[in-house]
């Protein structure tokens, strides 16, 4: 982290696509695009259509943590190549080049902060074999710059301010873009972010532009409803443990849950994955693909035993992980960035805010 303060720049909407295309010369640029009813991140095309603020339906996590990737491929070799006794060659995939996420929401950028300690091996600190780091994630993480676009206003599913974020939070961001009249104010938050501004169309921002942005940030902040006091929310850690065996509570909370994976797959902080092999018998790959703790198969053991067979147990684990277990081993930080996608896109309107608050209340009650 550098203590150096950065100079904000301004880019007009007219010049925006040119700047992004210039960035795309050196890195793969991912930017939101409306497709059908959804807003998805796509690789930058002509850079058009990015003048207006778009709230992506999905998070940007797939840029660093693809929905599926080959951990390695394998190939049997030699005369009787097919035979199980044949020699086998393993090959790791080549890493991609640098990437830029343009138009991430501040919550998306903060989402990666939940990934970082896990994929950096902090979870394995006690393991005797040494700390195991995930090179796939870490390579992309080091290679990716994130341009956050500040939210103009909050939706009623938003709760970033409960968990330490805000519409214009710069945590995890390299550059903060704020929509102004005629263009974007680009405030660098890191060296890497500042470097992105080395383009003739990124002109130094005027003081009034900086002030306007600050005012917009404040307005957006105000559009968020009242958050529960931080101390109260921190009680979730103990509350969720206390309610662990309260099956009636969890059954009530999970009644409407469909056990689908929309919440986990749209979540910027959910990092769980599955590992499966695909092969034609001679060559194949070991794939790492997104998995969801809401799926019954997630914990199903080969013996048939399943510690989380009921959807109530799975919902309990998801909420528990985010608001109790993760904070317990990661400095009290929730594994939730408050983006509200899990609420907004839940086909059955499950609201994690309500569950956490209900748990705190129920535990206090007991």
């Amino acid at each position, binding site marked *: 982290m550098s203590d150096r303060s950065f100079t904000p720049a301004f880019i007009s909407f007219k010049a925006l696509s040119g700047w992004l295309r210039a960035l795309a010369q050196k890195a793969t640029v991912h930017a939101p695009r409306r497709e059908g009813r959804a807003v998805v991140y796509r690789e930058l095309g002509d850079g058009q259509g990015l003048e207006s603020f778009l709230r992506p339906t999905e998070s940007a996590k797939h840029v660093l943590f693809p929905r599926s990737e080959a951990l390695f491929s394998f190939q049997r070799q030699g005369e*009787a*190549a097919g*035979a199980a006794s044949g020699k086998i060659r393993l090959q790791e995939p080549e890493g991609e080049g640098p990437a830029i996420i343009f138009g991430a929401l501040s919550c998306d950028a903060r989402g990666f902060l939940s990934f970082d300690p896990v994929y950096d091996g902090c979870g394995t600190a006690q393991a005797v074999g040494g700390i195991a780091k995930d090179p796939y994630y870490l390579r992309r993480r080091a290679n990716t710059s994130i341009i956050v676009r500040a939210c103009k206003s909050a939706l009623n599913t938003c709760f970033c301010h409960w968990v330490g974020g805000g519409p214009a939070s710069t945590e995890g961001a390299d550059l903060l873009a704020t929509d102004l009249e005629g263009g974007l104010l680009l405030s660098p938050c890191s060296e890497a972010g500042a470097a992105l501004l080395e383009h003739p169309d990124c002109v130094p921002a005027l003081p009034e532009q900086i002030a306007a942005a600050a005012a917009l940030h404040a307005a957006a902040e105000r559009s968020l409803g009242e958050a529960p006091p931080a101390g109260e929310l921190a009680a979730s850690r103990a509350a969720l443990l206390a309610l662990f065996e309260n099956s009636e509570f969890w059954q009530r909370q999970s009644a409407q849950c469909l056990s689908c994976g929309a919440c986990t797959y749209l979540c910027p902080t959910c990092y769980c994955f599955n590992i499966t092999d695909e092969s*034609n*018998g*001679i060559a194949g790959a070991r794939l790492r693909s997104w998995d969801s703790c809401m799926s019954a198969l997630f914990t199903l053991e080969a013996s048939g035993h399943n510690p989380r067979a009921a959807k109530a147990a799975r919902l309990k684990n998801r909420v528990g992980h985010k608001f109790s277990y993760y904070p317990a081993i990661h400095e009290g930080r929730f594994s939730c960035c408050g983006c509200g996608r899990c609420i907004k896109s839940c086909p059955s309107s499950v609201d994690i805010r309500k569950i956490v608050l209900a748990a705190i209340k129920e535990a206090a009650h007991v």
Partner: protein
Amino acid sequence: MRIGVFICHCGSNIAGTVDCAGVAAQAARFPDVAYSTDIMYACAEPGQDAIIEAIREHGLTGVVVASCTPRMHEPTFRRAVERAGLNRYMFEMANIREHVSWIGKDMDANTNKAAELVRMAVAKLRLNRELTPKSFPVTKRVLVIGGGVAGIQAALDAADAGLEVVLVEKEPSIGGKMAKLDKTFPTVDCSSCILGPRMVDVAQHPKITLYAAAEVESVSGYVGNFSVRIRKKATCVDWDKCTGCGLCTEKCPSRKSYDRFNEGVGPTTAIIIPFPQAIPKKASIEREFCRQFTRGKCGVCAKVCPTGAIDYDMQDSFVEVEVGGIVAATGYDLMDWTVYEEYGGGRYPDVITSLQYERLLSASGPTGGHVRRPSDGAEPRDVVFIQCVGSRDPSVGRPYCSGFCCMYTAKQAILTKDHIPDSQSYVFYMDIRSPGKGYDEFTRRVQEEYQAQYIRGRVSRIYPSRGKLVVCGADTLMGTQVEVAADLVVLAVGGEAAHGAPQLAEKLRISYDQYGFFMEGHPKLKPVETNTAGVFLAGSCQGLKDIPSSVAQGSAAAAKVIGLLSRDMLESDPQIAQVTVSRCIGCGKCIEVCPFKAIQEIDLRGQPRAEVIETVCQGCGVCNATCPQGAIQLSHFTDNQILAEVEALCRF
């Protein structure tokens, strides 16, 4: 897994159009293949020994043989790998003969195709699991369907071997077509004299239960344990009381009934004993002719019956029998010859069928053995026989040869001369087919000794003229037109599958060909077996044949059943459905679609689950295709195995 691949040359049958060594070389690089070679004749003893040796030498755990169709030699090779210590289901075949080398000449394409078929077989074999058959007890009883000469032979042979036999005959008496014949060729001995005693044996055999006037209603179960429901048709006569005295048939006032036994040559009564030697010799009422039924009153037979056996209210009844094997011997019927307009289409009374002529010749027939033509009862002098009526004639959908007409026509020409010494027989024929023992000599005798005139040619028209029937035809040998003024015309009407044969086949779950004849397991190697285990064929139901062949097949079928039921336990085919209980959701869809009721619902800790009854499952896999989550899988044809074959072809 360590797979061995053997590419068979089959002499030049495969090697002629497939590069077998090339296929073997390709196969060496297929997944899990540890050994691959080509081989001259895989099925021959040296071939099998080579496979066994390779299994031992290379520690193979699975084998693929690419050769002929698995329908031929799969059992052979399974036994071979078993001899080498492998489970017999750790084996797959690729059919590179019938499906490759024999249907195309392009060496490159064939070689490529053969390699792909091997690749598929390897892909499937990699997912094969060892399977072990289950044993189950058998019911040592056999059902014979049809009481003609083939069925009688089968029943007697099986009963003599100590098996209980249930014989079902749809007519009120056994005897079948042979009972209707006067004499038999080529010995010209009396048909009923040789058949009659066998019929009596059936009646008296302690091991045989005879149900005449009965039909098979339904069949369930499987080899070794069939359940058969038999419909006993209401004869309106209580056969337990009937003594067969015949008083009722004498007194019956309805004398215009159609005489089925006599092929309608003369009328009969409504209550009948079909013929004097009938077994069982019991009366039965033909309701469509009986006045009690057609007019609602009569009751004569009931009045005269000394034992009070008549019961007009009798209903069809049912019996259930359990049997271990089934012999179908349902014979044949004559085709409906009236489609032939050129022969008068049935309008001329003196154009009759050969079977009707048998009845006219028979001493026990309606004319007492005197040949009298139907129109006026006169004794005919010039008799014309026309061959191949409804045989070898694609225009009426009967392209096949009935096989026995040439011989019985010759016999009938001889008998005509015997009955009417001054008569003259003319035989219009296409070819004379007489390949049996003593048969060709017989057809020469009729021409040389009995002066029957054989005219090679088709009859184009028959028309009546002054009390005679003028038969116009061509003599293709002479190249002339021929006209014969005949007193009687006898048509050698061909046979066809017995009416109702397809329906019975469906009950027995056996196949039948496009004409309705039942399909044998293999045309050469399994002539009396069917593709349904435990069901065998005898006589003309499998294809038209003469008496000696029918008898031989009856004995053969009996031998097969005796062999089958000589074992106390049978092994069930383990290629059956299996439920992964942990994945079953108990929705019951598999239970609903199973054609064999082989799946039952069980309770697993309060939850419904499906369970396969191993001995009932026949392995069709309909359940597997129905189960949405694939919790029920057909062993040896699992989803993953079929997907592996598809993917080997399409993706890899």
